[in-house]
């Protein structure tokens, strides 16, 4: 009797999965916690508190699979916010979207085009790479007036996706991709690529379709080689602004910049700074924050059942009102994508990522 009565009054559990042991996962974890605290401070959802169940997937597919199976098996978990990047999200989506009681997942920042419509239980707050690559190409061509581009890409789905999308658009605009060179996380030096790019006519823009460590490696070696090409990168570079002078002036495409002008976002950034020693959230944090608030609204209106939550989410933007979050307006298409969201280009200025237009 006691157990039966205490059960519904207990907290509603939301899984939170990402590489929390790594720097890129920090903002996501913090923002999600902030959102939950705010919601609980207002009395929770349907008279019950929200509770996060964080699970570290280390950014690896195998770990993500294991973590996903654990979250799926816990009947208290009603939905998952995560995973952070594309490959773990792809692996985990296979777990969440199958079996007798599927679980909806909302990724804050997994941008691979492969994820679009991977199954009916996958949703994401961020635009896909298909939107990032062309945006970067147009920025390089128009704003930077670049005509010869060099690309260093991480040799995985993400890097190749950005490379292909950028090269397609840049070539279409009339530019030349001089060379596209791959690397893997184990690669210790990119110097041969950079040296070769310097030969002949050289390049006038370098696209780092890379993760943050690879980008940092390239930037350090550029510094060593005294190269000063304008550097642009995808949203995987977000966080790089913390590296100080090395990254000053690097342009990063992003679904979200903390200096977005909306009052709602300003309040979020201020709350975040207050809660975490003056830190600023990144696009992952903002995405996770929106994902948690969206789930809270969903549970309020549809109840705390796994299927009810999924069915409600699928209607957000068509049938149910779109969700106005700090990252902008969230309205899902049938693939769980947010086609209405725009990619913006930010620039690192004084250790901060700000809108390129601020310059």
């Amino acid at each position, binding site marked *: 009797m006691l157990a039966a009565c205490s059960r519904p009054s207990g907290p509603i559990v939301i899984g939170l999965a990402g590489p929390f042991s790594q720097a890129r996962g920090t903002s996501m974890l913090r923002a999600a916690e902030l959102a939950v605290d705010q919601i609980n401070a207002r009395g929770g959802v349907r008279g019950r508190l929200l509770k996060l169940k964080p699970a570290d997937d280390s950014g690896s*597919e*195998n770990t993500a*699979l294991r973590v996903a199976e654990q979250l799926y098996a816990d009947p208290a978990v009603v939905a998952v916010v995560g995973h952070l990047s594309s490959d773990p999200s792809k692996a985990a989506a*296979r777990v969440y979207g199958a079996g007798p009681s599927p679980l909806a997942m909302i990724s804050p920042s997994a941008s691979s085009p492969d994820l679009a419509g991977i199954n009916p239980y996958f949703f994401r707050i961020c635009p896909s790479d298909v939107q990032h690559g062309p945006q970067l190409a147009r920025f390089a061509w128009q704003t930077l007036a670049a005509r010869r581009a060099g690309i260093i890409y991480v*040799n*995985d*789905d993400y890097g*190749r996706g950005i490379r292909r999308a950028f090269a397609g658009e840049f070539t279409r605009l009339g530019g030349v991709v001089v060379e596209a*060179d*791959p*690397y*893997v996380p*184990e*690669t210790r*030096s990119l110097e*041969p*690529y950079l*040296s*070769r790019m310097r*030969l002949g006519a050289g390049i006038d823009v370098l696209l780092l379709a890379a993760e943050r460590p690879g980008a940092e490696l390239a930037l350090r070696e550029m510094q060593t080689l005294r190269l000063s090409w304008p550097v642009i990168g995808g949203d995987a570079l977000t966080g790089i602004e913390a590296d100080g002078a090395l990254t000053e002036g690097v342009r990063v495409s992003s679904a979200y910049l903390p200096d977005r002008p909306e009052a709602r976002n300003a309040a979020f950034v201020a709350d975040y700074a207050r809660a975490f020693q003056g830190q600023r959230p990144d696009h992952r944090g903002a995405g996770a924050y929106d994902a948690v608030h969206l789930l809270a609204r969903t549970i309020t209106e549809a109840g705390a059942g796994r299927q009810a939550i999924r069915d409600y989410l699928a209607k957000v933007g068509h049938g149910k009102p779109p969700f106005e979050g700090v990252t902008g307006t969230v309205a899902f298409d049938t693939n769980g994508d947010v086609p209405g969201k725009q990619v913006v280009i930010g620039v690192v200025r004084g250790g901060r990522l700000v809108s390129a237009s601020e310059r």
Partner: protein
Amino acid sequence: MRRIFDTIRSRIVAGLIPLSIGLVGTALLAAVTLRQMRHAVADELAGLRASSEIGSGLVAMVFDEIRAAEQYLAAPSADARQLFQAASDEAFQYARRLEALGITGEDRIAVSRLKQLNAAIQVDYSIAHALKDLGRDGEALARSAAVRPQAAEVTRLVRDLSSRQAVKAAQVADRLSAASREREKALWLLLGGIAVVGLFLARWAMLSVQGPLSRLVTAAERFGSGDLRPVTVGEMPREFRVLADAMQHMADRLRRIVGEVVGESDRIAGSAGDLSATSEQLAASSSQVSSAMVEISGSADHQRSALGTMGAGLEELRLAATEMAEAADRTAQLGAEIRTVADRHRGDVAAAGKALLDVREVVQTTSRQIGELAQLSTAIDDFVDLIKRISSQTNLLALNAAIEAARAGEHGRGFAVVAEEVRQLADESARAAEEVTRTTTLIREHMEEVTATMTAGQAKVRGIESIAEGAARGLAEIVAAVEQVEHAALRVRVAAQANRQTAERLKQQVEQVAGRATAHASSAEQVTAATQQQGASTQEMAAAAAHMLEAAEKLRGVVRGLRV
């Protein structure tokens, strides 16, 4: 439910439908099973083929990639570089496709490692190419050498993957064969179930025919043995119910006819009883008539003896008158004696008159009773008419029954015999009634005779009365004469002469009266004889009534054999 299955046809249809459904279902199940197995085999084979194709494609591409890369390292050219780029992109696509196959466990780790190795090989060669382009051949060579163990690992991983696929194929084959065994077992069970259901339904249909049929036969045998009471045959198929209803209908008709026959025989018996009672009444009346006649006869004797006594007196008177003529002086004494005698005779004459009055009364009573008897015999006629009507009606009913029995065929044969019995009994009743009519006519004739005799007797009695009155008057005259003798002794001789003449005339008259009394007595005896004859007729009638009663009882006995 009962309503739906109330015909044999519907029961057979109801039995065949589930059987057909079961058989069709089994066939469908078998077809579906075969189809599923085919699809499962096709899917598994497609999966195996895809993974083996992709695996070998990946290995081929990795080697293409290595060849192109080595070629570039040997002699850098745009062609070789493009070839390397294309091969590495292709290999990457193969790795992705391998990943997309949805493999799990050990295979997933192997595939993910393959992807990593492929990516690393590409990167190593890309850097070697860059070094070669930069003219740093030594570094490029060292770099390309690092590829070799990775290439070997790729080959090993793909080989392992293939062998695991082969094991998996064997497992799949086992699983499919186990599944097919399961399905086979299920199909056999289903077929067995259908067979059991079929047997059960067949038995059900047979029982639904046999049970009602045997009940109908029992009912027909009962009717045949004369038990015509309504039979409850219970639930039965509609085809049998039509037959059962026809039998019930026949039994109803027979029962009604038998009921009427019983009623009629009761009425005949009642009539016969009435007739016999009437006969007894008649006999009683006859005996009354007889006793009255005996009384009449007795009275006539008495009258005759009284007249004899009077004759003797008159003789004495004649003798006395003669003596008176001879002895005049004893006349007064004799006169006194004469008066005494005359007084005594007057009393006797009065007594005789009184006796005659009694006779007249008895005769009147008798004739009234005979009239009543005639009326009663008319009632007998009415009864006989009734009996005749009843017997002719019974005859007609028996004929109808015979026709119905013939129509019922084999089952009506028993009743046809009964109907014939009834008809014969009706004929017998008619004959008995005829006999009664004849007897009654005879009785009536006898009664008319008796009535005529009685009327004659009455007239005669009235004559005797007037004679008696005359005698009384004569005696009074004697007394007056004797007084004249007493008063006028002188004229005794003359008077004695006259007296003698008168006495002679008186004697003559008395003899006449005596003759009449004798005639009267013989008439009474005649009446008695007629009455005795009537009594015999009445007994005959009673016997006829008894015969009729017996016939009615017999009829009743025959009908009682039929239970309704």
